[in-house]
């Protein structure tokens, strides 16, 4: 039974993962935190918290609210900054078996490029996930991801700055996702992550004002799964680069749906916040499914429901 695969077949060096189960950015800290709870070395890859050129404090409290089967977050990209990441985290990652992909964000194409340049060649950094889809920052983030041209500009800038495998994480908010997907693939993306959170709002009815000081927030969790699945299906048909499915995945069955819709790998996010073992349980469930159905290679499932 084969679970391993090359996540970025179009990239000269490739990036071989032991299996298609990854963590989603912002839901496993810098990997170290999740590593204190479960055996992360068994996973396909770790995608760390979004990182920016300078450290960010993020948004004021409160930062999370629960919705039916969902989670609204307004973290605001709190992070230690790329220099501290290279100094304190990358050396740890370099000793891990599981590859670490660094999620990056910025307020301008230049900032993205600079973060990517500094990560280039750093031992312990296996790839970059370009977050052009964060709804929780005042500038940049999602704005880049909504339109093909700005999205392609950011990706091209990052592509010039590094030879690392590049994943580009797309937003469903106000975007024609297949069009953005085609543009960033052309600009040098080796794979696409579909998708980031969906914009949402909560109101504090006692105080008659928005619940979050930053007003808007990103919705994640089981509530968004069918939406993410639909976008994966659409994007996978629009581009030839691999698609990594993300959004509400909490079980092996969820993961199978994403694979069959056209994803070559999946990321587990909010589910890990509820149950830190979730990524391992998804992996074990996938293994059990392959065994039970006598499927030799997980790649046989990719796009199985999208072939028609």
């Amino acid at each position, binding site marked *: 039974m084969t679970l391993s695969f090359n996540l970025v077949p179009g990239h000269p060096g490739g990036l071989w993962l032991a299996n298609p189960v990854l963590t989603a950015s912002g839901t496993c800290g810098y990997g170290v935190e999740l590593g204190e*709870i479960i055996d992360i070395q068994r996973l396909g890859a770790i995608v760390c918290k979004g990182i920016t050129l300078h450290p960010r404090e993020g948004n004021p409290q409160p930062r999370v609210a629960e919705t039916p*089967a*969902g989670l609204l*977050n307004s973290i605001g990209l709190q992070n230690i900054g790329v220099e501290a990441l290279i100094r304190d985290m990358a050396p740890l990652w370099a000793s891990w078996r599981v590859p670490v992909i660094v999620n990056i964000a910025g307020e301008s194409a230049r900032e993205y490029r600079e973060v990517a340049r500094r990560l280039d060649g750093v031992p312990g950094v296996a790839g970059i996930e370009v977050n052009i889809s964060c709804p929780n920052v005042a500038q940049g983030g999602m704005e880049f991801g909504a339109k093909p041209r700005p999205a392609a500009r950011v990706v091209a800038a990052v592509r010039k700055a590094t030879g690392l495998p590049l994943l580009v994480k797309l937003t469903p908010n106000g975007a024609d996702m297949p069009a953005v997907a085609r543009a960033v693939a052309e600009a040098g993306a080796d794979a696409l992550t579909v998708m980031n959170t969906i914009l949402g709002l909560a109101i504090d009815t006692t105080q008659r004002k928005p619940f979050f000081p930053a007003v808007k927030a990103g919705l994640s969790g089981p509530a968004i799964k069918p939406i993410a699945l639909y976008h994966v299906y659409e994007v996978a048909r629009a581009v030839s680069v691999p698609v990594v499915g993300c959004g509400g995945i909490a079980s092996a069955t969820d993961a199978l749906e994403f694979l069959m819709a056209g994803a070559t790998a999946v990321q587990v996010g909010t589910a890990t916040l509820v149950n*830190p073992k979730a990524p391992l349980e998804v992996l074990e469930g996938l293994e059990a499914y392959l065994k039970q159905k006598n499927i030799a290679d997980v790649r046989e499932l990719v796009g199985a429901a999208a072939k028609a």
Partner: protein
Amino acid sequence: MEVIDARVLSREELLPELFFIWLEAPTIAREARPGQFLMVSCGVHKDPLLRRPLCVSRLAPMGNGQTPDRLALLFSVRGRGSLSLGQCQTGDCLSILGPLGKPFRLERASRKVVLVAGGTGLSPLGGLAEEAVRQGKEVTLLLGVESATKMFPPRVIPQGVRLEVASMDGSMGHKGLVTELLAAHLAGADQCFAVGPLGMYKTLARIRPSLPPVPIQISLETRMACGTGLCFACSVPTRQGLRLSCKDGPVFALDEVLWDRL
């Protein structure tokens, strides 16, 4: 830290919407210290989705042993999660994750400690009081309730402590805020531990200069998603920069937190 299915050994509704639940949880109870907390699943089929943070209120052995293998939750109903948690029955299993966070730092050398509980702030302080009494310390518990009808029944008041009550309506003990009792009791104490709503901490921070300089530890109730340091939802501003309530706390020194930014 572990995720386990803990069996409900007993469930009591102490007062309307106030629950006291004992769980069989040997692996967690063994490790837990007063001030640490659990993330508790409150629903079936992931609804509500998130676990709720609740303090480990008491620790005790099941039989005659020394090592604790059961633990108690003490909580009031605030919304959907706590409402459904209160409806559990003896024999049910609850998925719990813990122990989490940093415990209270109770110094061996402290001889006299003062505990200040605002309402269900009694939850973690109950266990701390028992520990302090076991260590032979002199323990004063200042307990604030809304009124005599909201007073906790004697069996959840830790034994061997000197108890002073304050009620908002004056129907029991001192009339007013529990923090108003503090000035009279803090002199001569080595440590103070206070747990209650945010407003209580802000009051404490404000009256701090007028109080004897006894170190005060508090436990913060910050909204959390994971409780395990993964999501950065529960950041709080401190003099040392941002700290995570779930990993670096929930226990903090009162003077460490930047209260005007919370």
